[in-house]
């Protein structure tokens, strides 16, 4: 099988997937960029080229800065905690603990539940009068806090939900990686007299590095994508305290019908993801020297 015929066959095989991917990913990226340089078309005023005006407006928009900042806190707090918990969970269920089958299930369950459904339950947890959080904290003298209705606490409540939802999913990847680690290492370390703590930091953790990199990248992507619970729990409020970029794109694009500005915000989100991709590439490159 040679030459042109081979190439034609291969292209026929990849063509359907490529057309769909181009239509719904690659072309939209380009058109979003073009859109961000034009004004929003109105019934009597067609879109016209405005250069960087949308970007200038964005930089002057406090809600944009608020959403960006919220998103960075949301990612910056939920990612490290859920990844650390994932490692702990994986170590737990990889050992010889009693009931580890059940625990594995318990940790993983949030992953299969729809975010929109669990958001309802969490909404009730945070209820200021009879929510579970309130009932739990009452003995400590904390009661009647409007967790989701206060600017100081709302974002943190959402972060807790995100951690709860994500940790079990990442655990699976760590579990897979832990099972690849040879038991001989463990034995060698115990002969050397290394305790469990030392063993974890000196042997296990470095060996998990590739997994950690993979999980981190996915966790950060998810931190920009996972907005379902915001719709149910706070709708971005109070006073944009829980608005993040993707949620703001939805509001601007589908509630305010300002396509140009929504496109501009999308470009910021895409730029952040591109930075992440570059970061991953550089880090992955560095890691190669270890091997």
């Amino acid at each position, binding site marked *: 099988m040679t030459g042109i015929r081979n190439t034609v066959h291969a292209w026929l095989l990849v063509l359907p997937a490529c057309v*769909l991917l181009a239509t719904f990913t690659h072309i939209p990226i380009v058109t979003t960029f073009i859109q961000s340089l034009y004004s929003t078309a109105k019934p009597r005023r067609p879109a016209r080229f405005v250069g960087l005006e949308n970007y200038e407006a964005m930089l002057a928009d406090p809600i944009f800065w608020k959403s960006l900042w919220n998103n960075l806190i949301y990612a910056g707090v939920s990612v490290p905690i859920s990844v650390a918990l994932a490692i702990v969970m994986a170590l737990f269920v990889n050992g010889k603990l009693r009931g580890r089958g059940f625990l594995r299930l318990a940790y993983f369950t949030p992953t299969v539940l729809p975010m929109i459904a669990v958001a309802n339950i969490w909404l009730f947890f945070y209820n200021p009068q009879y929510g*579970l959080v309130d009932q739990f904290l009452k003995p400590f003298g904390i009661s009647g806090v409007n967790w989701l209705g206060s600017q100081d606490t709302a974002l943190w409540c959402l972060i807790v939900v995100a951690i709860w939802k994500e940790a079990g999913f990442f655990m699976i990847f760590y579990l897979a990686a832990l*099972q690849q680690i040879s038991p001989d290492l463990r034995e060698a370390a115990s002969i050397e007299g290394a305790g469990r703590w030392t063993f974890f930091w000196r042997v296990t953790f470095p060996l998990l590095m590739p997994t950690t990199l993979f999980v981190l990248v996915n966790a950060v992507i998810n931190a920009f*994508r996972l907005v379902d619970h915001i719709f149910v729990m706070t709708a971005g409020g109070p006073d944009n305290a829980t608005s993040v970029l993707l949620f703001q794109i939805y509001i601007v694009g589908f509630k305010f019908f300002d396509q140009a500005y929504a496109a501009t915000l999308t470009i910021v989100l895409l730029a952040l993801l591109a930075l992440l991709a570059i970061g991953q590439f550089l880090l992955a490159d560095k890691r190669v020297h270890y091997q």
Partner: protein
Amino acid sequence: MSALGRGRGAALAGEALETAAAWLLGVLWLLPLLFAIWTAFHPSAYVAHFSPFAPLTLQNFVAAWNAAPFARYFLNTTMLVTGVLAAQFVLCTLAAFAFARFEFRGRDTLFMLILVQLMVAPDILLLENYLTIKAIGLVDTVPAIALPYLASAFGIFLLRQTFKAIPKDFEEAARVEGCSTLGVLWRVYIPLGKPVYLAYGLVLVSFHWNNFVWPLIITNSVETRPLTVGLSIFASPDQGIDWAIICAATLMTSGPLLVAFLLFQRQFVQSFLRTGIR
């Protein structure tokens, strides 16, 4: 007590502590689900009043089922998930096969381009995708919910890895027997990839069963809305909140997925481990 004995004692205490911590975390993680189950099976008077003597009831499920067209939402979600599953299996298999076993010009560039979708999922390009769907006249249809997700970089990547790991001898043997290119794919690669298809299928089903934002944007009628969007409308604050009924509806919508997960739990975790998605 010898030093060895003391060491063993400390180790035992450590183990007990670890087990306790693991269980505490496990209970904490199950708490929302347990709570929803408790609330859904008891009368609304017992919401947040935990009493072992509270009477059990199925009334909340009946009330939820009658309050919104859940049967139709179930149908919509099932159609959506089946469609995406079938399309992704076919499209990603074909593409992955080409990337794994063909030498052709532009292959590596094309593959890199496809991987862009790993970073930029269609959910982020809400607006442009909405305009595309509008341009082809499919707004508020079930296919419109599925379209942006029919081809997946994750699927192509995963299956390509799987196919690459299969020894070429298998393929050559099949060719000697007279198999065509597609015959080899059908007879050799797909059967050997079965565990990966299972894991990939489960991930895919749970993702699309749970997907919310894009369906919310692209649908606006009972005939097309999937469960997640239906549930969000049903449970929105202006409907007057009865937590028992909302919990029943919540369990109902996640029920099938949860049952499937419990049934396939072992395969699910195992195939994840085996495929080495990392």
